[in-house]
Each structure stands twice: as structure tokens, then as C-alpha cells.
């Protein structure tokens, strides 16, 4: 029981962390803690097979799938928290608590007697006992599971995989196409201009200056332009900007000293 009382608080705190943490990644990590603790619980309950499976499948595979999905989402996406049905959340919380209360009561009332049948089930060892059921009594359900897995593969493929519909274009094709465009529309066939890195600034979010003093739109990455993080010409020394950004990020990035005197390297550049 000692192990239970050690693990239980950890699990409860981690489970709360899953629900309450603001960043999805932190939720996922808390979930991993819950899963590992659960695996230890299984080990304590004479279920070594379940212990191994919990670690291999849940903490390994399923957790990885969770993280993959998080990467697909992009963390800075915030959901709209506007309730479409008024009072929905309150009703949900009340009903959820009631439901949880009923279940806890039921389970608590039921599990007061001593556990029976465990020794019998594990007589030949836990894995052997399981295999006996899996490959004999429940063999049909076992085989049907493969239908489930195949459906899952089909589903993932249909929804996420885009089949190549045309032969792949080689570099030669691309070059030809570029020259064609140059011949027909006068589109510049060479590289795009580089951003204003080193000329005025030490990052790729500043457009290059053209000879007439205006900025070149095409010198910055389209992704940055779409995100709206491209900076225009006028800004203070970029180091102090970086400092402010770091401070705004809060204490998680570590203690940030007050800005020292601007490094000499940047001094001249600010005047440009």
C-alpha cells in the first residue's frame, strides 16, 4: 500500500496538470507521468504484462502520437472560448461532478471485500494466463482486432496522405520552366534578393534596402510576411529589442540581466 499512497498524489497532481496547464505540451508531459504511474500501479497489482504494455504502448506509442498531433496543431493557436449555449460550462461541471460522485461511490462500495481469484488466474504466470485466454477463448476477438488496425491504417492514409498524381518534376524541368517564364513574362530567373541581414540587422525579418532607399518586399520569406513579423525600416538597436522580447517571455527563459551597454558591433548599424 505504501507504493500506492506514494503514487496516488503524484497521479492526481499530474492529472490535474493535464487539464489545467495552459500549454498543450505540458499537458502531454503530465499525461506521460500519469501513464507511467499507472504502469507502476499495474506492477503492484500482480499484472506484469499490463505493466509492460502500458509502458510500451501508452507511454511509448500513444504518447508519441499525441506529440505528433500537437506538432500538427501549432501551439500558438488559441481556441475560441465563447460558449454557444449559455451556461453550458456550469451545467457540464455540475453534471460531471455528480457523475463522478456516483461512480466513486459505487466503486468504493463494491471493493471492500478481499480480492479473489487472482492467484488462480496467475497460477502459471501472468503472461501465460493471458495468452491462454487470448489464443483460445477470445481468439476471434483477437483476430477482429486486426480488422480494427487495418481500418486505422486506411483512415490515416485516406485523410492524411496525398498521393503524387503526376510524375515528379526534375531540376531540369524546373530550370526550363523558369527560363520559359523569363522569356514570356520577363520574370527574373535568378535567386530572390537576400533579406537585410548584416546590412542593418542580424535576423531575417528585415527586408533588404533597394538602391533608392525603399525596401524590397520579395527579400523576406513569405511565411514571415504572412505571420506579420516582418519589421520595417525604423527600429531601435535590435539587441535591445531582443532583450525586451526575452523579458516579455517571462521567467521561464531564465533570469535576464538588465541590458548592458549596446555591443560595439551594432553601434554603427543603428544609424543606417
Amino acid at each position, binding site marked *: 500500500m505504501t507504493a500506492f499512497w506514494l503514487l496516488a498524489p503524484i497521479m492526481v497532481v499530474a492529472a490535474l496538470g493535464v487539464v489545467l496547464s495552459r500549454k498543450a505540451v505540458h499537458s502531454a508531459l503530465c499525461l506521460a507521468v500519469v501513464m507511467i504511474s499507472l504502469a507502476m500501479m499495474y506492477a503492484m497489482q500482480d499484472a506484469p504484462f499490463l505493466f509492460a504494455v502500458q509502458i510500451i504502448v501508452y507511454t511509448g506509442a500513444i504518447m508519441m502520437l499525441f506529440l*505528433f498531433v500537437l506538432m*500538427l496543431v501549432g501551439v500558438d493557436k488559441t481556441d475560441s472560448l465563447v460558449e454557444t449555449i449559455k451556461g453550458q460550462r456550469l451545467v457540464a461541471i455540475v453534471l460531471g461532478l455528480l457523475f463522478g460522485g456516483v461512480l466513486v461511490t459505487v466503486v468504493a462500495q463494491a471493493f471492500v471485500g478481499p480480492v479473489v481469484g487472482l492467484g488462480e488466474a496467475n497460477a502459471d504466470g501472468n*503472461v501465460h494466463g493471458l495468452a491462454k485466454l487470448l489464443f483460445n477463448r477470445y481468439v476471434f476477438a483477437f*483476430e477482429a482486432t486486426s480488422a480494427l488496425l487495418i481500418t486505422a491504417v486506411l483512415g490515416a*492514409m485516406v485523410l492524411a496522405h496525398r498521393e503524387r498524381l503526376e510524375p515528379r518534376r526534375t531540376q531540369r524541368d524546373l530550370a526550363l520552366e523558369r527560363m520559359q517564364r523569363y522569356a514570356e513574362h520577363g520574370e527574373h530567373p535568378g535567386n530572390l534578393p537576400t533579406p537585410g541581414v548584416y546590412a542593418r540587422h542580424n*535576423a531575417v525579418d528585415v527586408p533588404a534596402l533597394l538602391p533608392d532607399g525603399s525596401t524590397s518586399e520579395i527579400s523576406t520569406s513569405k511565411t514571415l510576411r504572412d505571420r506579420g513579423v516582418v519589421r520595417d525600416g525604423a527600429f531601435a538597436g535590435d539587441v535591445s529589442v531582443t532583450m525586451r522580447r526575452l523579458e516579455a517571455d517571462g521567467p521561464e527563459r531564465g533570469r535576464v540581466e538588465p541590458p548592458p551597454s549596446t555591443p560595439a558591433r551594432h553601434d554603427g548599424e543603428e544609424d543606417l
Partner: protein
Amino acid sequence: MSDYADYLATYASVAAIIGVGVLLAAGMLGVNRLFRPTLTTPAKLLTYESGVDPVGAGWAQSNVRYYVYAFLYVVFAVDAVFLFPWAVVFASIGWAAAIEMAVFLGFIAVGLVYAWRKGVLSWT
């Protein structure tokens, strides 16, 4: 209750290894921390991107096509769960067990063949 204690004792070695692992990692990092000079400058906290200051947050959205790889892996990780007990009883069941597992793996292999023919496994 002594049975239970005995049973838990079989996990003592596992617990010991975990403990040693944690101690080792913590020890190495701790010793590092003791000996290294700690001079925090904001520039040191920046992500290194070939000498250019990073722009935007460190998190980028990845393409959904990679999800298929993750998923195929999970499918096969799940079937490994069944292989474990199967291996334990294979000797006592014999051919029937081999056929059962062959059917199961065959079904799943069909899924893999499908993915392969759709060109998931080739790099584009």
C-alpha cells in the same frame, strides 16, 4: 501479506536500476553546475541559428503527411503487444498458434502493403 512483499521484492532490482539511473544523471548535471562559471547574458539564451538571430517562436507547425509515419509505427507497436504473450505459449499450442498469429499479422501486413503501394514509404 508476505507473498505480496515477496512479489514486490522482485521489482527491487528494477527500482534500484531506475534509482541508479536518476542518481547518475542528476550527479553529472550537478557536478557540471558546480564547476562551470555561470555568466548569463541574454544572447546566450537565444536559439543558435547559424549566427543569425532567431525570428518568431521556436515552435513550427509540421506537415500532416508525417502523421502517417507515426500512425504506422503505432499500429505495429500495438501488434507487438500480442506477440509477447504469443511467444510465451507458442511452444504449447504449436501450429494453431502459428496460424492464428500469421492471420493476424497477415491482415496488418495488408495495411502496410497498401501504404507502400500508395507511396508513403518512399521519400519525395
